[in-house]
């Protein structure tokens, strides 16, 4: 096996080198059972989100006031028709949890990705260009790392109103800073390395340098940060929705379900338990995935 790897990397082109690298990382990753479980949970979450209409037994919006606040199937009046019970207007909790995955995963994945692209771009700009811009960007990341962004987030949400894309933009602003820092420090350290100087001496354009030399070098770090940001975005989205600044009812989101659930703590615990467990498991899976990826890609990454 090892011999084979050496052969490919010696004789074949870059592509197969990359393939063997990915293979190595993957085999390192699956070495830990925890990683495999986390990956499984994550895939389940994504699939649930993708196929929500097929998975969900009912329309998450259809109300039935005759059947309001039914407990889960295994308790008292619970019925098999509503396995996780119904809410205050008789909507199926399971279906709402399933559709909630759509919101959580959809918004989380989108905003973490945009935050990644935006953050890396800002970091590259800050690393390459003059001190003024660089300092400004770094002060902003400073502010974000020490100041509770949630206050800015609810203020923006209060001003611009809520909506899917507005929420995604707010979350992007929430999560871009770590990407920028990693990209910037990588640019600064690579900038003076020989191969960059060499390609500059050969007349390579700054942009070319950025994309062909620096990006591959920060890929591992970015992937790991992206994973942790995804977890953070899922938590942030549920928090904003819980506070009433995120997804608006009746669209089912886990945070919004907990807003209602909170008012029925003593009578209908299932309204709070299931969306909460969903958030927890998803975030847990993504965080563990991040840990596993970091260990597999580069244990020395301190992110």
């Amino acid at each position, binding site marked *: 096996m090892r011999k084979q790897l050496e052969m490919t990397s010696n004789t074949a082109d870059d592509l197969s080198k990359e393939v063997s690298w990915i293979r190595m990382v993957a085999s390192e990753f699956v070495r830990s059972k925890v990683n495999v479980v986390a990956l499984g949970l994550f895939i389940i979450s994504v699939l649930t989100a993708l196929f929500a209409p097929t998975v969900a037994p009912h329309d998450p919006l259809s109300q039935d006031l005759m059947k309001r606040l039914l407990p889960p199937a295994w308790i008292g009046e619970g019925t098999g028709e509503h396995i996780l019970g119904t809410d205050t207007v008789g909507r199926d909790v399971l279906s709402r949890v399933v559709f909630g995955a759509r919101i959580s995963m959809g918004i989380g994945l989108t905003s973490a990705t945009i935050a990644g692209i935006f953050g890396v771009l800002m970091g590259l700009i800050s690393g390459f260009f003059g001190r003024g811009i660089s300092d400004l960007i770094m002060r902003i990341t400073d502010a974000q*790392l020490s*100041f*509770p962004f949630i206050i800015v987030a609810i203020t923006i949400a209060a001003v611009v109103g809520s909506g899917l894309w507005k929420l995604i933009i707010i979350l992007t602003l929430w999560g871009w800073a770590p990407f920028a820092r990693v990209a910037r420090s990588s640019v600064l350290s690579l900038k003076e390395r020989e191969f960059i100087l060499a390609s500059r001496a050969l007349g390579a354009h700054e942009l070319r340098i950025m994309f062909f030399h620096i990006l591959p070098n920060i890929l591992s770090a970015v992937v790991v940060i992206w994973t942790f940001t995804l977890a953070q975005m899922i938590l942030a989205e549920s928090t904003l929705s*819980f506070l009433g600044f995120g997804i608006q009812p009746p669209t089912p989101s886990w945070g919004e379900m907990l807003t209602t659930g909170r008012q029925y703590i003593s009578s209908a615990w299932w309204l709070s338990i299931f969306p909460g467990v969903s958030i927890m498991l998803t*975030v847990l899976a993504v965080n563990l995935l991040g840990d596993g990826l970091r260990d597999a890609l580069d244990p020395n990454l301190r992110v």
Partner: protein
Amino acid sequence: MGRLIARRLLQLILVVVVIQTVLFFILRLSGDPVSLLAPADASPEFVEDLRERMGFNDPLYVQYLRFVQHTAVLDFGESFLTHRPAIEMVFDRLPATVELAGGALVLIILVAIPLGVFAAMGHGKSYGHFLTLIVVIGQAMPSFWLGILLIMVFSVDLRLLPSFGRGDLSHLILPSVTLAAWFMAKTTRVVRAEMLEVLRQDYIRAAHAKGIPYHLVVSKHAFRNVLITLTTVLGLDVGQLLGGAITTEIVFAWSGMGRQVVTAALARDYNVVQASVFVIAIIVVAVNLGTDILYHYLDPRIRAQ
């Protein structure tokens, strides 16, 4: 050291300015709040007059300069809702939030530090794995949900602790546990990782070679080095703790500034929002500066510079 602190202070003031400026423009983004203030049946002339009187007809930069001027003397205007000075309303609520955050901070320090050291000692052993599991779960739980769970168990079922309001120590327990949980998990993780890192250092091996008993190597040689990193981490966390207080205050009907800022934001009571943000920013800056000074005091490598 004085120069370094002065430089740091300048940086931190810049942070406050950035936050305030960004917020100012965000708040003016959607036009002005006059339409909200005027009665629904007010005539257009009345609205226009009000707008003129409140200065919303001036160019944006004039408004901004005026805002900066007022900020300098802590004048954030009146609340549109209560017609009290916004800054006063924030100061009224400040003690409750400080109490909550303080309780959480005490918990973090008392629980997470020993737990982190313990987890590092248990590296590769079963109790180490168990603690790691607790930590990852703690980091995955949204705090508002944890609050709901705690109320379910300790207030509704066991009837042990009050679920809302401020009062004696028993009122503080559930909210501060709720607020602290995520940070405890994170800090445990940081302490564990840092401890393992320090224990790998040459000077730890050298300390063992000197014949220093194991518990002293850990508590003196290793832990003091961990403490230095931890100071910075905890300093940065204070700001996030104030942010986390928002959901906690809502879940436990805790009348702090977090709950107030949500109410204000929902009602577009911008002056109160702006005043709250300013006060939080100042606290964050002060804590960061304090952390820096402490850090200088603790770490001779920096002290000497």
